[in-house]
């Protein structure tokens, strides 16, 4: 039976969403979490807090972001109309700053001076570093060594903003290890530190709080869709790492049964264990990092390795709210592979002049498969959760390996790069790959 309102249930929850969620942390962190939960409950009912949040979202962050029609892509795919919600136009380049502004204002309200955060793609860390600079807070960001290397531009931006970025050498050196490092820091400084967690995961109140701060995305989509198209979308798609951009996009439309919601997970290199990060499709129920949800696991409850070309989706767990809504069958889930995501970056760039983040490209890749099967009076909205500049060295290696190598040599030697600007053979191959996606 459908509850009276998903939105009401989520916002009123004391931390459980069906069986999922909860607060599974060491006792030593309970006072800090209770303080944050209580502070958040008060803040979200305080008109002064909400007015400041609104001011910052407009004048610092640049909201609202456009709902951009994609006419050339629509024509090429030959089915549903397609539009994207351009969260890449947020200050610092992704949706992450929506919850960073909210949480940093809350941290300040709670009198905390020291902020810690984890980051995968670097977008949450970058946004955290920016708000900390703006509000005068000390900022430390944990980042797996592998992500530190593959998302190097964001490391630099964080440092330029005055944050300390700590590469985590432990484990697989990805987002999961960064989360653990952040928790260990918090256990060591539980009284003075605010943990600014970056997705709709973790112990209560983070899943609910980040959903609350991100729900503006879906609220804008509702309004823009009615204004621009005279109707609500038929289908909305968002990529799913931890679930913050998906919850942001989906929340406001959860109680519209005619709006189909699809979360797209990282299919990685394939369905074998360790080669993907699809926890709703390939994981099972567990309790880890403070919350009960679906996790990729092996051998009696150990946490499995993950893989995705996109650092932001390369994580073992998923929002307990999404786990519940998956069980409720309110949200469907699909996966897109590394190759499909890379191809989608190029397709969107060349067809519509927009370079999406690799994370967001997963949602586009699935939309490309879906659109031809729908009719022109149906509207698909894809969440472009971030822009693709941060992926410079990943996509360039893929599309223009030779010119990347030449550029690296050039930087080292101070000489003119040979052959820069030339399109490599690799990129021609990928154009063909994206043509295959069109053909679906």
């Amino acid at each position, binding site marked *: 039976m459908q509850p009276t309102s998903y939105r009401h249930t989520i916002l009123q929850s004391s931390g459980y969403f069906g069986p999922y969620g909860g607060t599974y942390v060491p006792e030593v962190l309970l006072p800090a979490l209770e303080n944050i939960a209580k502070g958040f409950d008060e803040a979200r009912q305080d008109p002064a807090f909400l007015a400041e949040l609104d001011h910052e979202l407009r004048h610092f962050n640049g909201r609202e972001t456009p709902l951009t029609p994609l006419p050339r892509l629509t024509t090429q795919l030959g089915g549903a109309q397609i539009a994207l919600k351009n969260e890449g136009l947020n200050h610092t380049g992704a949706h992450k700053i929506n919850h960073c502004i909210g949480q940093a204002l809350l941290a300040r309200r709670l009198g905390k001076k020291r902020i810690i955060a984890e980051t995968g793609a670097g977008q949450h860390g970058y946004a955290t570093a920016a708000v900390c600079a703006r509000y005068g807070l000390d900022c430390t960001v944990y980042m797996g060594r592998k992500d530190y290397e593959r998302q190097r531009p964001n490391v630099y931006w964080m440092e330029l903003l005055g944050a300390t970025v700590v590469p985590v050498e*432990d484990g697989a050196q990805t987002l999961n290890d960064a989360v653990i490092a952040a928790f260990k820091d918090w256990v060591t400084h539980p009284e003075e530190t605010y943990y600014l967690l970056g997705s709709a995961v973790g112990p209560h109140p983070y899943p609910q709080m980040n959903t609350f701060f991100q729900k503006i995305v879906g609220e804008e989509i509702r309004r823009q869709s009615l204004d621009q198209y005279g109707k609500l979308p038929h289908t909305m798609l968002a990529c799913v790492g931890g679930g913050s951009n998906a919850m942001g996009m989906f929340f406001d439309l959860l109680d519209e049964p005619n709006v189909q919601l699809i979360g797209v997970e990282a299919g990685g290199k394939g369905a074998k264990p360790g080669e993907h990060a699809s926890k709703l499709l390939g994981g099972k129920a567990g309790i880890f990092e*403070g919350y009960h949800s679906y996790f990729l696991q092996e051998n009696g409850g150990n946490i499995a390795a993950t893989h995705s070309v996109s650092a932001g989706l390369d994580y073992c767990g998923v929002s307990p709210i999404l786990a519940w809504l998956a069980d409720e069958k309110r949200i469907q889930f699909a996966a897109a592979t590394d190759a499909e995501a890379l191809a989608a970056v190029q397709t969107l760039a060349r067809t519509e002049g927009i370079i999406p983040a690799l994370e967001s490209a997963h949602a586009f890749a699935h939309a490309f498969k879906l659109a031809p099967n729908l009719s022109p009076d149906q509207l698909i909205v894809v969440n472009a959760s971030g822009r693709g500049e941060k992926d410079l060295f990943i996509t360039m290696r893929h599309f223009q390996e030779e010119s990347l190598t030449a550029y690296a040599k050039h930087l080292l030697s101070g000489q003119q790069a040979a052959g820069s600007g030339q399109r490599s053979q690799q990129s021609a191959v990928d154009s063909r790959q994206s043509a295959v996606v069109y053909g679906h």
Partner: protein
Amino acid sequence: MKNTLPQPKSIADAPDCLLPAACCPLMCHLVLGYPSLAESLRTAEAYIAAGCEILELQIPFSHPTADGPLITEACRHAVEKNGVDIEACLDLVAEIRRRHPQQNIVLMSYLNPLFVFGLEKTAEKLLALDIHYLIVPDLPVDSPQAALLGPLQDDNDPIRDDKGLKLIPVLGANISDQRLEKLLASGFDFFYLMSDFKITGATFSLHPRLNAIISRLHAAGARCGIGFGISTPQQAKLAVEACGLAIVGSAFIQARNENRLQKCLSEWQNAFIVES
């Protein structure tokens, strides 16, 4: 030989609380299956032979979120290299229990392996092995999942079923008075105190607020031990003076890694025991 320190209280209500003559007020930790199942059995026996009052056996987990590098490495080695799972651990615990029916044993595990195995089933298996205390660092002791391990006492019923399995709350110096009273009223009677705000294996310090907590616990008739970062017999003595029990993990793992566990244990033992 006689113990120079006040005779440790047995773990309240546990039936397996007889102490060997040369008992040291130590709770000695090891990771089951590290560096191998057989070797961890030998380590357990070395602890017992050295008079360790309580044996703390940790089920290895791929991602121990509250442990320092030594225990993390030990867990990872057990899980990844040796493929040790909870079933193998319970078999080993059964063997330790068979050989040492009188030894105080507590089990330690992160929540997910127990959750996947089944919390009710975990409780059943441990009780069958005459193990009555369990540490789960990421399970708040009054959460709904904790209830699956066995019922808590309510205020109106002060006599808790002796045969139950009890969680050992792991407290830091930031516990509120209110919360402490609630835990005591719920029947928890053995507490793990973090020496300070840190992870296992860090440098040792004693948080000044611990004394007040210890006084309250002792006044309520509960037992407690201090752990996290204890790496020398002198530090252990400070902990024992403060609360009656020192909990040691990483230091012994390090000693074992450096092939000097035996020597290390006799040093610790000597520090606690003087010839009469």
